[in-house]
C-alpha cells in the first residue's frame, strides 16, 4: 500500500493485536509504545477483532505511522490497516535480522531504508 513514512522502529516477532495491544494507549503488553512509530512485524496472528483494534488505535491517535510485515500479510492485518489508513508494507523476512528497536526507518517509493 502506498504512502511514504519515516520513524523509529518497534520490532515484534509475532503479534496479536487483540489482547496484546491496548487501543487506548498504543502500548504493547510488554510496555513498549507503537504510537507514532514504524511497527515491524515478523508475523501477525489472532482473532479477527484485531482489525477493530487497529482502527481504534487510529481513532485514539495512538496508531503506528506505518506497519512493515516480514512475509505474507493476513486479511485481518490488511483490513485493519486500510480501515485505519495506516500504510502497510510487505518486506523480505531478512528484515527481521537487520532492524532493531529504535532503528531509524524511512520508506519512499515502496523502498524501505534502515539506518
Amino acid at each position: 500500500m502506498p504512502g511514504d513514512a519515516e520513524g523509529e522502529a518497534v520490532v515484534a516477532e509475532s503479534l496479536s493485536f487483540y489482547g496484546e495491544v491496548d487501543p487506548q494507549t498504543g502500548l504493547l503488553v510488554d510496555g513498549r509504545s507503537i504510537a507514532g512509530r514504524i511497527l515491524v512485524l515478523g508475523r501477525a496472528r489472532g482473532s479477527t477483532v484485531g482489525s477493530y483494534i487497529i482502527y481504534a488505535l487510529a481513532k485514539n491517535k495512538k496508531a503506528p505511522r506505518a506497519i512493515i510485515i516480514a512475509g505474507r500479510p493476513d486479511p485481518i492485518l490488511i483490513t485493519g490497516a486500510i480501515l485505519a489508513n495506516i500504510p502497510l508494507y510487505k518486506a523480505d523476512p531478512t528484515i527481521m535480522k537487520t532492524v532493531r528497536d529504535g532503528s531509524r526507518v524511512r520508506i519512499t517509493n515502496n523502498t524501505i531504508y534502515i539506518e
Partner: protein
Amino acid sequence: MYLSREEERILAGEEGEARRLALSVIVKVGEALGAERLIPIKHAHVSGASYSTVGEAGRRFIEDLARMGARFSVPTTVNPVGVDTEDPGRVPVRYTREYLRGQKAILDSFRSMGAELILTCTPYYTHIPRRAGLGPGSHVAWGESSAVVYGNSFLGLRTNREGGPLALMAGIAGRTYYQGLHTPEGRRPIVEVRVEYGPLDEAEAGVLGEALAEYTPHGGVPLVRARIASEPGLRELAAAVGTAGDLGMIHLEGVTPERPDTGGIVERVTIDRGEMAERMEKVAPTGRPDIVYIGCPHAGISDLELLERELRRLGKPRSRVLVSTSRHVYMEALRRGLIAKLTSYGVEFVRDTCLIVSPFRDASVSVATNSYKAYFYLSRKGVRAGLAPIPRLVESAR
C-alpha cells in the same frame, strides 16, 4: 485487479462514502491475496457482533459506519450477540450497565444498516437461505467459521473464511474478492482422510474435526470418507473444523453436493477406532456436571427432539440443562410444543447468544457439552469442560 464500470463508480464515491470505503477495503485485501477480480454475492453473514468479542473498538467502528450512512446491499444476517435481547436474565452472567449499552449500540447500528437481526451462528437453520435464493454454487461472504465450513461443505455455497469486518464490508459492497474457496481450484482436496469407524455421533464428529484440522496443511481442503450419524453431527463437525484450525471447507463423501477433483491429493491418512477412542478419552467429562450445555453452534429442531426423548426416558436431571438457539428455531420449537415439554424437565433456553460469546466465565462450575467448539472455548475461559453426546450427557446429569 480488473474492475467493472459499476465497481469503478463505487470506488469513485458515486454511491456514497460508506460503499466506497467498503469496496476499497475488499479490493485492497483481494489485491494483497492475489485476486484478479471481484464476485457479486447473494448474502452476507457478519460475525463479531457481541460486545464481548469486539469490545469498544468494534462498537466504535460499527457505529461510525452506520453514521456514515452505510446500508447492506444484499440480505445480511448477524452472528449471536452477548445477551438474550428479550431476557438478559436467562444467561448465567451479571451484566454491567456499560456492557448492555455497548451491546445495544452495536445492535442499533446493524439494524440501521438494514441487517436482518436473527442473531445466530446457524443462519442455515432459518428461512434466510431460501429467501436469499441460496443454493449450491451461490457466492456469499460469511464470517462465522462454523457456518463457513457448513455452508461450503454441506450446502455447496462458495465463501472464504472472512473476518468479521470483511464480511461486513462485503455486505455493504455486495461483492467480495474472487479467490480461494470461491474458485474451483481453491476447493480441490489435498489430503484424503478415511475413518474406519462409525457412524459417528455428534461428539465424535467434533473430535474428527479436530483430527482433520491437524492432518490438513494450512488453508487446504480434506476429502473425508466418514459416516456421520445425524444432522447435528454435521454441524458439530463443521464447527470443530473451524475451531481447531484454519480450514474453510471439507469434502465429505456422499454429503458435499459437488464432485471433488481428486487429482491434487498428496497424502492419505486413516483414522481407526483406537485413535478415535484415544481422542474422545482426552476430552471426556468426569462425574455429574453442574451444567449440561447444548447448542454450540445454535441448536436445531433435531437436537431438541433428541434431548426431549432422552429426558423422557431418564427423567428430570439434577444438573442444570442449558440450551442456546436462535430465536427462529425457538419459535418453531414453541409451535411444535417442544419448548413446553423441555421446560417441564427444567431445561433453560437462551436465545440470540450462547455461553461462548456472552461474558459467561465461571471457573467454579463444570460444564458438559456435546459441542467440541464449546468444549474448546470454555476450557480456554477457565471453565472445567467435557465432551459427550446428548444421551450420555442426560445420563450424567441425573
